[in-house]
């Protein structure tokens, strides 16, 4: 780690938000990065707001480095309350911006968090589709 983490990264790491499981989650996105060994499990709970589906709750459990923990935690903060479709459009740059930047070698961590969230949302849509059949 030749490049230091930003203050914001360190804050998210030291006091990570939305960490844990959602007992009655609507879906769980389980992702992992084989190179660096990171694992993230993103739990989502979907609710309604003005007829739209929103992320009522997002939680995450992370095995990984400082950046992995910080990005996953930041993403949950950002995604909470969002419409499902919008949440699917969050980019890795959005996360990096929220975190005041990330060392280049660690940019992939934000990707992993995003993948986790997307996988959870897909799983949710998948289940809805199954139900609607």
């Amino acid at each position, binding site marked *: 780690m030749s490049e230091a983490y930003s203050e914001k990264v360190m804050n998210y790491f*030291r006091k990570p938000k939305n960490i844990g499981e959602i007992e009655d989650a609507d879906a769980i996105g389980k992702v992992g990065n084989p190179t660096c060994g990171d694992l993230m499990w993103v739990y989502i709970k979907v609710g309604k707001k003005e007829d739209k589906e929103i992320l009522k709750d997002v939680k995450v459990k992370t095995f990984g480095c400082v950046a992995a923990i910080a990005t996953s935690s930041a993403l949950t903060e950002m995604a909470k309350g969002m419409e499902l479709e919008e949440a699917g459009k969050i980019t890795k740059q959005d996360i990096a911006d929220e975190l005041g930047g990330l060392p280049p070698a660690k940019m992939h961590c934000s990707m992993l968090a995003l993948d986790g969230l997307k996988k959870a949302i897909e799983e949710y849509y998948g289940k809805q589709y199954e139900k609607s059949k």
Partner: protein
Amino acid sequence: MSTKQVYLDNAASTPVDKRVLKEILPFFGEKYGNASSVHSSGREGMEAIQKAREKIAKAINAEPEEIIFTSSGTESNNLLIKGFARAGLEKEKHILTQKTEHDAVLHPIEELAKQGFETRVLEVDREGFFQMEEFEKEAGRAGLASIMHANNEIGTIYPIKKIGKICREKGTVFHTDAVQTVGKEKINVKKMKIDALSASAHKFYGPKGAGFLYLKEGIKIEGLMSGGGQERKLRPGTYNTQGIVGMGKALEIANKEMNNAKEKEKKMQKELAKRLMEIDDSWINGPKIGSKRLANNLSAGFEYVEGEAMLIKLDDYGIAASTGSACSSDSLKASHVLLGIGLRPRRAHGTLRFSLGKQNNIQDVKYVGEKMKKVVGELRNISPLKKGVIK
């Protein structure tokens, strides 16, 4: 930030001993002449350098003329390995090494492999040892064998004397990367039949930017650089007088205090190991405590959590430790040493190295044991793999 500071990263670098600093200070502001110069100021520098050379030679039972000053352990390794190959190693003769060597040995050898040299890297067991019968068989075909004295990540001490004997019998030149043992373990290049040895001053309480290569008389190598006539043209460039003088003094001190330091470190090592093993699902890498391993090294793994995250949490408690080796912390890949001894990547990523030094005491390691329990517990709480479990 914590007010208590515990530095357990002495395998990465050590503080400069006060007595060393005192010895080198005059070379900054008073005795600054170029040591190759004819005038008094230059001669004074050269005399100090020659004294350092003698101290270093004495510390490993070599001759003063067999010491070549370099800038680091990395340079010493590269100088020997590439220099020996380029000086005329026959292409049909192997370069023989083993899996847990430092990158500063493995990478030069890989470079040579790309240039057409035959190389052979021995596999190792869970403690980091290769099969001696296999070594003996391969040594016969090898022109050069490079086997480290002790491993920087997991502390394995290799049977250098036995290896030296085999190499001498087979006519194989034997180089040892002794960066982790010079000043810490007894070294006698004559008895151990070592032909070349690399060391780095900042690992034994000397300054950064100074290292040396011992090269047995009669062994021909090519230099990495060319220029002035310093070090028999093998390592040109204005002498780093203060670095060399500091290295000499540091090694003299380290050798004198070696036994005491080791005893103290062994006690701390045992205590730390005990406390860390109180954490559930944890293990120690490398040979068992008390067996063939460095007294100052403790590499321990913790399931379900990741190394860098532990380090930063420890840092918040004022504790300095490291994941694999500091040198490769730019890379995200798991340590080749830990993978080499058979750890799965996720377990390799859950490993920390604590390395003791003479500035540490038993209170320090108790403090580290205590904080490690908290740190591992906290991280396991957020890990998807398992809930935090502490014995």
